[in-house]
């Protein structure tokens, strides 16, 4: 039984149909990359999973159809969605942001906080500052750290590399890999296909709201169409 299964999922924004029937599967513990051009429906796919947008078609979590898929409900089931733009609470302190991450947990121990700070030592230095004063890279780490506090089963990330320097992007992805090794299923939407495919084990390519290609990341890296369109060679 897979952790997540999407069957023929459609989604629309008002009159505009963004997903035309997306089918994909994610096994527990996997690291999946979603690739595609702008407007292909990658962000919408994540929103469909986290319950932020209304959909038709089936979305099964742990083999069960989830009926009232609101963001709060999916968060309680262990889905952590880090949207494009980090989604930090800019006027709250770093510490408060992290405490918020643990909202779905009954309580959190200082052990959890300590773990997170071990992972991201820079955040400890800024812990009392307003989150909005952090640099882009630090905010992305904060977003990840907040997700960690939730001890999610499924971590959804939308364009984590956006606007960040290559060195920082590598740091982020190595943290993601570490989290994945710790048991968290990771699903990343990325424009930076190169780094996404090197970190992920499986990948899907979306085009105009549909899955056009799917398989092991290594295979996709070698596939001609992917190389031409997304890897630039």
């Amino acid at each position, binding site marked *: 039984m897979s952790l997540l299964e999407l069957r023929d999922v459609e989604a629309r924004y008002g009159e505009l149909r963004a997903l035309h029937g997306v089918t994909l599967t994610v096994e527990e513990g996997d690291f999946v990359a979603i690739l595609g051009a702008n407007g292909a429906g990658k962000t919408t796919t994540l929103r469909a999973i986290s319950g932020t947008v209304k959909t038709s078609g089936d979305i099964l979590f742990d083999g069960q159809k989830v009926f009232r898929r609101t963001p709060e409900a999916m968060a309680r089931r262990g889905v952590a969605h880090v949207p494009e733009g980090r989604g930090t609470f800019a*006027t709250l302190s770093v510490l408060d942001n992290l405490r918020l991450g643990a909202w779905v947990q009954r309580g959190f121990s200082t052990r959890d906080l300590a773990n997170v700070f071990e992972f991201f030592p820079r955040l400890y230095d800024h812990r009392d500052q307003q989150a909005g004063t952090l640099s882009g890279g630090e905010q992305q780490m904060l977003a990840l750290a907040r997700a960690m506090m939730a001890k999610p089963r499924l971590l959804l990330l939308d364009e984590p590399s956006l606007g960040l320097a290559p060195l920082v992007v590598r740091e982020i992805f190595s943290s993601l890999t570490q989290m994945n090794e710790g048991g968290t299923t990771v699903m990343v939407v990325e424009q930076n296909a190169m780094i996404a495919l090197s970190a992920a084990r499986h990948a899907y390519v979306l085009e105009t709201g549909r899955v056009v290609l799917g398989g092991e990341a290594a295979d996709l890296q070698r596939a001609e169409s992917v190389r031409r369109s997304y890897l630039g060679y």
Partner: protein
Amino acid sequence: MTNVLQQIVSGLASGGIYGSLALAIVLIHRSTGVVNFAQGELATLSAFICWSLMDHGWAFWPAFGATLALSFLGGVVLQQTVIRPIHGGSLVGIVILTIGLLIAVNGLDSWIWGGAAKQFHGPFSTSPISVGGVAFSKQDIGVVAVSIVAVVLIGLLFAKTKLGLGLRAAAVNPVEARLAGVRVGAMLALGWGLASALGAVAGVLAAPSLFLEPNMMQTVLLYAFAAAVLGGMDSPVGAVVGGLLIGVLLNLVGTYVHWIGGELRLATALAVILGVLLVRPVGLFGRAAVRRV
């Protein structure tokens, strides 16, 4: 010298009332982003309810408790029925809606209880005590004490509790808060409920000295706005400190600056509002939201 002290003491007493109402205004603003122009009238309504209960034979404390509960519920109901539908809509629209509430509640008070002023017997005695030539009453002390207790409780709620964190998060970034699992709708309703209860406190504090009638809080509202703006629209501490400052300022200026005198208190409050908004909009205790581009 005693006169100055007297003015300060009386100013603190009125300032406590302004601060309590300002606290309610700040609470709603901080947790829902809305400035509730109807806050004063809702406080008056709560005071009227408390008066009615006492008029029917209830003792003060049970009546007050019931009023607090009813006001809390009323705030929740208001938020769910009238505020939630337009949440996230245009600012102009929301402001106008709360103005509509102001007018409607004011009319309701007149309709049910009439326009004549009623005597309100609060828990504290209003008979004056004189210490060193300065006169004040237990009511005055009570007002200041209650305001301080209220702000401490609210401050603790926001800073130290999980609930307070949820309230703050729901206000700062409702979309993100939902993704974190916060039931934003419930938080917003809670914010309004709490603020309405605080408003009830302000109304009950004001009624013994201001005399209970439908327009009781009309001018207090402006002073409360001045206090909230001065203190910083998102700071509970700022609201109460601002209120006390405004109370004292109005008294001192009214007594010692002759061309202002007692008639221009409202204009002075307006000057404070304009001054702060134009010079330092975040107020004394507010923090400018810093945004990295």
